[in-house]
């Protein structure tokens, strides 16, 4: 007979397994509350999320980015360093003529190319963040469906993602700009800071159409690789990044006009070395970027709503 055998016909009770009674406060509202009280609680509960839902989402996306924070930092500083060294010291050495003029006459090649490189860096961030993580939110991890069950709305998920990505682009473009100054590629360091803004706008004008597209994809069939190869690369090569756009034959110019890279780079050049640009053209560059970003951002919000509701 074992010690735990019943004595006096009373069975033993084993409570060890579920003994820890962790008490939690469950009901914010008493069980007997009236429907009016319950409705009031609901009306109150949505006030902050309706207003600030985008920021809550931004917080969540930034927290997720922490998982690969190291690559963000190394890439953000390392990539400009390599480009500026390679192009500034290497390519510049074999280009004896000046390709562009600034406010104070001809400028060095690295000065010409740096603002465009800054723009491609923010676009690189955009094409990273607005593709696979979006696909993951809908398809792989399905986190967007979890968020959609909270008071925040699908367009607020979009604005949260945009805020978080702007944060990352800001880090990357500030690092780029600082290195450009170090490399002596910024004759107008004060005004030149506007090239950071140009980079952000160009990144969004390129990234938000991509976001709208990525959120509409249901199967990953390598679409993002195609975008990289057949959209990003041509825009990169034919947008006056490495040489002025008018070096190309006229029939290739429309690629530049449509390209956020070109609009962003031209704004950056005006800012960093005073590339002669009429005021109306500056306005066109800025408006083109803002318009593309705004329309695409709205479309992305619609696509998110359609998929999550």
């Amino acid at each position, binding site marked *: 007979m074992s010690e735990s055998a019943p004595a006096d016909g009373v069975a033993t009770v084993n409570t060890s397994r579920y003994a820890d009674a962790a008490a939690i406060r469950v009901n914010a509202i008493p069980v007997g509350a009236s429907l009016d009280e319950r409705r009031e609680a609901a009306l109150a509960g949505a006030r902050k999320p309706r207003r600030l839902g985008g920021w809550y989402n931004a917080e969540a996306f930034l927290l997720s980015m922490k998982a690969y924070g190291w690559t963000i930092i190394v890439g953000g500083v390392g990539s400009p360093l390599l480009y500026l060294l390679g192009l500034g010291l290497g390519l510049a050495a074999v280009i004896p003529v000046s390709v562009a003029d600034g406010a104070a006459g001809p400028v060095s090649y690295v000065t010409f190319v740096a603002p465009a490189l800054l723009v491609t860096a923010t676009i690189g961030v955009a094409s990273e963040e607005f593709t696979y993580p979006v696909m993951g939110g809908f398809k792989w991890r399905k986190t967007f469906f*979890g968020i959609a069950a909270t008071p925040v709305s699908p367009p607020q998920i979009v604005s949260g993602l945009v805020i978080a990505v702007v944060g990352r682009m800001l880090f990357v473009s500030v690092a780029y700009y600082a290195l450009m100054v170090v490399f002596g590629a910024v004759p107008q360091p004060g005004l030149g800071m506007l090239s950071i803004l140009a980079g952000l706008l160009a990144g969004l004008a390129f990234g938000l159409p991509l976001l709208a597209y990525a959120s509409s994809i249901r199967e990953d069939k390598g679409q993002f690789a195609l975008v990289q190869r057949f959209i990003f690369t041509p825009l990169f090569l034919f947008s006056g990044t490495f040489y002025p756009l008018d070096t190309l034959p006229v029939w290739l110019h429309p690629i530049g006009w449509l390209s956020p890279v070109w609009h962003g780079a031209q704004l950056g050049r005006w800012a960093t070395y005073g590339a002669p640009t009429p005021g109306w053209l500056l306005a066109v560059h800025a408006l083109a970027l803002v318009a593309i970003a705004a329309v695409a951002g709205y479309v992305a919000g619609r696509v998110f709503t359609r998929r999550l509701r």
Partner: protein
Amino acid sequence: MSRRVASVNVPTPVITASSLTKRYGDFTAVDGIDFEVTAGEAFGLLGPNGAGKSTTMRMISAVSRRTSGELSVLGLDPEDYGPEIRSQLGVVPQEDNLDTELTARDNLVIYGRFFGLPRAVCRQRADELLAFAQLEEKAGAKADDLSGGMKRRLTIARGLMNTPQIFMLDEPTTGLDPQARHVLWDRLFRLKEQGTTLVITTHYMDEAEQLCDRLIVVDHGTIMAEGSPAELIRRYSSREVLEVRFGSDRNAAVADDVAAIGALAERVEVLPDRLLVYTADGESALERVIERGLRPTTSLVRRSSLEDVFLRLTGRSLVE
């Protein structure tokens, strides 16, 4: 209108649906159902896969718009007050959608933020709920590294971050091993005891019997029956069930013979692998079967369950 309309004695209806319908193109997922859930109740939707349970849950949760009919949650129309309603619900979806890259604790904290809770409140509440879900030791582990049962408990903890008025669970224990299911039931039972309104979908009868005060049996988007588990069993089944097996090729052939045992066999149901004899007294029925010279390879006498109710109502098994 007086605020005294709803007193403690008259339970407050927190969800009211009438002629609730959802169509996807030609397919009608939910076909004009009516039901009411009152505060503090554990309400179940029982039915096979594809019966329209999840679609109903999604309409209540204000993430899917109804095609027609009326729906009121906490006195509000989900069509116009989605965020308001969602602010008061806890949702445990059928498929876990945790952020697998984040730690268990961060999953909770960030989720609380979506409800507008201050960071300090989120952190404190996350710790309480990790304890409640018995995941304290896993607080710093990535969600990806948790077992299936732990992920499920974390999802449940996440759904409680906002101290919801109504807790919605879509097949909470599907795919879990028996031990993990029991831990989970224990946690849900605690919530029920504290008066949380629970809405649960399941295709497990034992789950429905354990957790639900009242349930609707759903099939093809319509309600087949409604009542407490005990009521439903009383109304649609016998007290006991005798299960006999004669081998899959003979079951159908001997069914008439078994039915011939007389009034003791209220009804005989032929399944591919066994016969179910609905009876008031299973042991006596088995004796009669044997008296008739039938030799079942195995036999079992048990109480009727919701599975039998479902079989009676639809002619099909709940879990294939």
